[in-house]
């Protein structure tokens, strides 16, 4: 990309709210039912039916508003958005227009990794409640389309940002942070394959320093973070080329084709953008009392940002680690549960000061290095971890009390992960991994190693530290990992320096 252009991106996200029933009817929202078995009279728009708003959907919108520090409108209004399509049997979608339920708010995102990482606060414009449409199936019928209205009436929260993002990386970082947040506060299952979380990106470019926004094109229905990145990058390139060739950008809605990696304009429907919104006479204004907001607030979990701040101050954690442990609510729970379980195990030496910091450090390293990487390898979520937090605590306890060496601990961890035992103690027992701390058992091994590695001994005495490490390695190997490296160090040094 030429550096004299600036990219401007705003995102609109549809998060499907995880209520059990629909937003305006008592039909089920369960995924995967046979066509139209969960579409009741309201959903298929039989004449004479009336919508009744679902309290659970409103409560989730309040939760979201609180999580992003937004204003929850004491009074908001539902409006009809009029357009004709067979998967919208009423001829209008019930949405919110002038008075949405959530106004403003911010989301702080982390962009990039390592030295280039930076954080940025994205301003949100609004979030409003609306109903989803049904699905049209065009393939199976000659000259006809099949309509499945199971999804019609599913509650959605449409979350809109200001045009604050300046690269595809920022857009993806925002989408990921939002995706994590809606699951964290348990308002959306975040399942992108099933369409529970989908994004539209408004993309434009302008000359650096220009104040006026360029004409935007909207990329619809991005349902994976990878596609979002690809689609925006392609779109930006395309717009810059158009402008540099002297063409103007026409406002348009485009779709991303994952097969070609290109965006292309949808044939614009005539007057498609004239939705003729007006307040829905079937629905009275939605009132949200301060008491209701307080009640929802009291049920909110600690939010990711608060948690990160707490981890950093309570456990002296570095930013990167705090971020890793709050990548999901499940991950942070796993960390906290392991730490709590460890405290329950009697006889663990805590060290002399700030015991929890030392414990937390170990737990944090194990969760990030062993649990997270094992999950990654097998593409599992933390909830499916093959080593429970209690099992991990049991293992760490044996490292702390020197029953096993850190080498052996990795073996025990693998064994637990592979289901070779129920707890660390039984694996240590059956696999004979107990650390040998009896000097009289280790000394003969050290003697043997010294005798067999005369060259290393000579090099060490000539001042080569590396030679010493090689000897330690030999002893550890000969002890089958059961010796404590610290003790081997000490005994070996004593013998060599004698």
């Amino acid at each position, binding site marked *: 990309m030429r550096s004299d252009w600036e990219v401007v991106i705003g995102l609109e996200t549809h998060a499907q709210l995880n209520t059990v029933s629909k937003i305006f009817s008592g039909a089920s929202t369960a995924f995967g039912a046979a066509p139209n078995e969960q579409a009741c009279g309201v959903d298929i728009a039989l004449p004479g039916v009336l919508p009744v708003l679902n309290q659970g959907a409103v409560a989730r919108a309040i939760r979201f508003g609180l999580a992003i520090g937004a204003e929850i409108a004491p009074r908001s209004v539902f409006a009809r958005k009029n357009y004709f399509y067979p998967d919208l049997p009423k001829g209008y979608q019930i949405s919110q227009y002038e008075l949405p339920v959530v106004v403003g708010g911010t989301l702080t995102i982390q962009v990039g990794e390592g030295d280039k990482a930076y954080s940025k606060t994205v301003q949100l414009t609004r979030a409003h409640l609306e109903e989803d449409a049904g699905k049209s199936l065009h393939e199976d019928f000659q000259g*006809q389309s099949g309509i499945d209205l199971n999804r019609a009436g599913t509650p959605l929260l449409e979350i809109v940002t200001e045009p604050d993002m300046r690269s595809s990386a920022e857009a993806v970082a925002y989408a990921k942070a939002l995706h994590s947040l809606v699951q964290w506060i348990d308002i959306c299952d975040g399942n992108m394959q099933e369409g529970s979380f989908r994004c539209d990106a408004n993309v434009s470019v302008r000359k650096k320093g220009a104040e006026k926004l360029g004409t935007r094109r909207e990329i619809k229905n991005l349902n994976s973070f990878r596609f979002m990145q690809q689609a925006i990058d392609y779109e930006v390139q395309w717009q810059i080329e158009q402008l540099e060739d002297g063409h103007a950008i026409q406002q348009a809605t485009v779709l991303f084709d994952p097969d070609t990696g290109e965006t292309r304009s949808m044939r614009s429907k005539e007057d498609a953008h004239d939705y003729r919104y007006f307040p829905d006479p079937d629905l009275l204004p939605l009132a949200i009392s301060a008491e209701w907001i307080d009640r929802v607030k009291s049920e909110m979990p600690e939010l990711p940002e608060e948690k990160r701040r707490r981890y950093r101050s309570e456990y002296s954690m570095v930013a990167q680690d705090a971020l890793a442990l709050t990548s999901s609510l499940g991950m942070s729970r796993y960390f906290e549960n392991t730490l709590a379980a460890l405290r329950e195990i009697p006889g663990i030496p805590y060290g002399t000061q700030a015991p929890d910091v030392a414990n937390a450090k170990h737990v944090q390293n194990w969760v990030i290095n062993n649990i997270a990487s094992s999950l990654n390898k097998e593409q599992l979520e933390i909830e499916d971890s093959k080593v429970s937090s209690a099992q991990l605590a049991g293992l760490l306890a044996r490292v702390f009390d020197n029953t096993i060496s850190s080498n052996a601990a990795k073996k025990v961890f693998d064994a637990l992960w592979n289901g070779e035992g129920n707890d660390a103690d039984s694996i240590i027992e059956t696999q004979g991994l107990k650390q040998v701390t009896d000097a009289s058992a280790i000394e003969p091994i050290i003697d043997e190693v010294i005798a067999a590695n005369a060259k290393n001994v000579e090099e060490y005495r000539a001042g080569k530290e590396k030679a010493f490490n090689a000897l330690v390695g030999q002893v550890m190997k000969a002890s089958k990992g059961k010796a404590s490296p610290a003790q081997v160090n000490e005994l070996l040094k004593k013998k060599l320096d004698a």
Partner: protein
Amino acid sequence: MSLSLEEVGRIARLARIELTPQDAEATQAKLSGIFGLIEQMQAVDTTGIAPMSHPQDLVQRLRTDEVTETNQREAFQAVAPEAERGLYLVPKVIE
């Protein structure tokens, strides 16, 4: 304020209403009448009065989030013009 025939045509198209040229003229007259009424109403001073979105000054009652509907697909599809394999069939809509 009066409405042009073109504007009447556009409104009809958005509402998917077919108008003959004669209908269009009659509709133009009626709609212009409505706009006249609105103009009259707009002359009223409403300073300091909050707009209402509903004629009744009440708020929405909410329902508890629970499934209360059962599957009535058979009954609904019995009165549908066409249905097959559980789907409602309509003339092909893809462009």
